[in-house]
């Protein structure tokens, strides 16, 4: 339908290569002057150094500041009822654009936008029907499909694990895309699913990973925020003394997690270019092309999701070629990746 299209002048479509860093993609670069602009973002309880989502968004804004001289600011929320008050703080202070980072802020963004029709807001991972809000979503299922292809191709035990945070629609998209990707290249592989019920409990992630690896999995994909840190720790632990053929892998999420946890455990990561989206849409604001009222879903086509360049370190070229092949098939519509059961 209309809401899933980014046909609002095509303004929100990033057009660079998948692994491009924001700086390369900033076409207008220093030529844009944003000194009179103020941008803000509100996160949920996670804060801006969560090593994934929020941090990525904040990096996008800081890049904007560096490139245009715009003023940027953030507030983290202590609990759900702070979302709205924090958004309103910026809205009332005359910020040009206020971001809500994460689906949890969806309702608060909606309410703030309705009450302040002159303000401009934007939401990541959510969908707000309001004329003054830009909604940015990601086709996580498409990206997850590609890492599924990697996992399906590279597993030796034909057992693969998936660790989810909470069983909610966003995470479900990760799971389903991943399952489809694995099945596409390796129908014999079995994927064990383990939801931990939390996004912030590394100990649960560690235990979940332990049971998956114990059950024979050699690759685990996590979509569980900070809970996933436990998955990495468990894998590192196992690789410490393991022989080469017993080595286990983790597939990271949101950011290129090999930068944090190292190449020796991180097979690849499912990137979600929140930084890119935040940077882009904010830039459009400065340029007077803010996609107000539109819902933009960033998929493979838009390089909103994808694999990082660092994947080369562990994933052989032939598999990367296969990944590219599937990517084109998804973009062309030859393959449709499921989004919900």
């Amino acid at each position, binding site marked *: 339908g209309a809401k899933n299209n980014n046909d609002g002048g095509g303004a929100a479509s990033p057009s660079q290569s998948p692994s491009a860093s924001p700086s390369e993609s900033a076409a207008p670069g220093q030529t844009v002057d944003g000194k009179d602009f103020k941008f803000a973002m509100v996160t949920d309880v996670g804060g801006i150094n969560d090593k994934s989502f929020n941090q990525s968004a904040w990096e996008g804004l800081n890049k904007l500041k560096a490139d245009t001289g715009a003023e940027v600011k953030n507030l983290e929320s202590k609990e759900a*009822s702070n979302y709205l008050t924090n958004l309103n*703080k910026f809205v009332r202070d005359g910020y040009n654009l206020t971001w809500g980072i994460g*689906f949890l802020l*969806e309702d608060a963004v909606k309410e703030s936008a309705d009450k302040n029709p002159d303000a401009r807001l934007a939401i990541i991972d959510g969908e707000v029907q309001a004329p003054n809000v830009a909604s940015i979503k990601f086709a996580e299922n498409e990206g997850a499909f590609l890492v599924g292809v990697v996992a399906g191709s590279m597993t030796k035990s034909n057992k693969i694990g998936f660790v989810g945070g*909470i*069983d909610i629609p*966003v995470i479900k998209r990760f799971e389903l895309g991943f399952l489809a990707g694995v099945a596409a290249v390796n129908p014999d592989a079995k994927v064990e699913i383990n939801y931990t019920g939390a996004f912030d409990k590394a100990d649960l992630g560690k235990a979940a990973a332990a049971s998956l690896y114990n059950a024979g999995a050699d690759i685990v994909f996590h979509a569980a925020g900070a809970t996933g840190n436990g998955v990495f720790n468990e894998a590192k632990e196992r690789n410490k003394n393991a022989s080469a053929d017993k080595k286990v892998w983790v597939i990271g999420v949101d950011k290129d997690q090999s930068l944090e946890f190292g190449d020796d455990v991180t097979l690849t990561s499912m990137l979600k270019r929140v930084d890119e989206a935040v940077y882009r849409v904010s830039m459009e604001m400065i340029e007077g092309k803010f996609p107000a009222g539109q819902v933009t879903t960033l998929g493979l086509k838009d390089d909103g999701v994808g694999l990082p360049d660092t994947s080369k370190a562990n994933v052989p070229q032939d598999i990367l070629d296969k990944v590219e092949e599937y990517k084109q098939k998804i973009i062309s519509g030859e393959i449709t990746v499921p989004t919900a059961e």
Partner: protein
Amino acid sequence: MNKLIKAFTKESALVPLIAILLGLIVGAVIMLLGGYDPILAYRSLLGAVFGHRYDFGETLTAITPILFTGLAVAFAFRTGLFNIGAEGQYIMGMTGATVIGVTVHLPWYLHAPLAIIVGALAGGVWGMIAGYLKAARGVNEVITTIMLNWIALHLANYIVRQFLLEPGKGRSYRVDDSASVTIGWLSRFMDDARMHWGMVAALLGVIFFYYFLWRTKQGFELRVVGANPDAASYAGISVSKSVVKAMFISGALAGLAGVFQVLGVFHNQVISAGHTGHGFDGIAVALLGGNNPLGVLFGAILFGVLSHGAAEMSFGANVPPEIIRIVIGSVIFFVAAPGIIRWLLKRAAWKKRKEEAI
């Protein structure tokens, strides 16, 4: 009335005031050590709360749930029980209200009251489980309420996900407007702050707390059981029944905190990864208020003002909002250990005398 006047002139009123002052000073010192400007920070804090109608209104909204959970914890304390489970009861209250708000369709004069009652009952029943296990099986309520907090979290998530989920979202459908308890005109007056009847209900809760415990027959029984269960059974009061009853009421109070968050603030319930902390904050509020209804009210106000203002402190003075938890902690600390204040006062007086002597 006489009592009230006395209460304010006695040392018992002086101690909290000095405690608040000392707490703020501790906060200021820590800010200075961290290289922040405490004056600016506190000015931002006050500005955030009293500077604008909107902020004032939102502060009231922030006070409401912790006033309820504070009352809940204090009520249990008064009857000799330590309810660490306000958090779980809060969640169950939310869930009860959401279920009614989403699945039942009624005119407003029935819908909102029904949602409130069911939410309060859900919280009450959740508290009652711990009460029953204590009364019937002698299981320590501290453990059961901790466990029930986690069970409530997951049970609520299950209910929302299984029965109330709006497709594609991580939360329930919106509750019907007929179940909403917002006060439109007041919100408009308060510049769109989320005003709702919860604050009024919470104040009624304060009055109920006082009247029930000190004015009614049943309250008398609960207090006797709380103060001396042996004497209670000698006096013919059933201790088990009282424990169950007390935990039910305590749980219902905590449940109401959740009810009004759903019906007045969020209008839906999200699948939640963790606890909100309102229940645990309730313990602090209860302690801050010395488990007295009026004290709990003041405690909740102080707590609410400080925590609502914390965001503004980090907005206006870039101070990490966590500093406020240190301030609140210190205030409770000084309230709880009046000996320290007396000791400090004595030292101050002694020093002064010494200086005079020289």
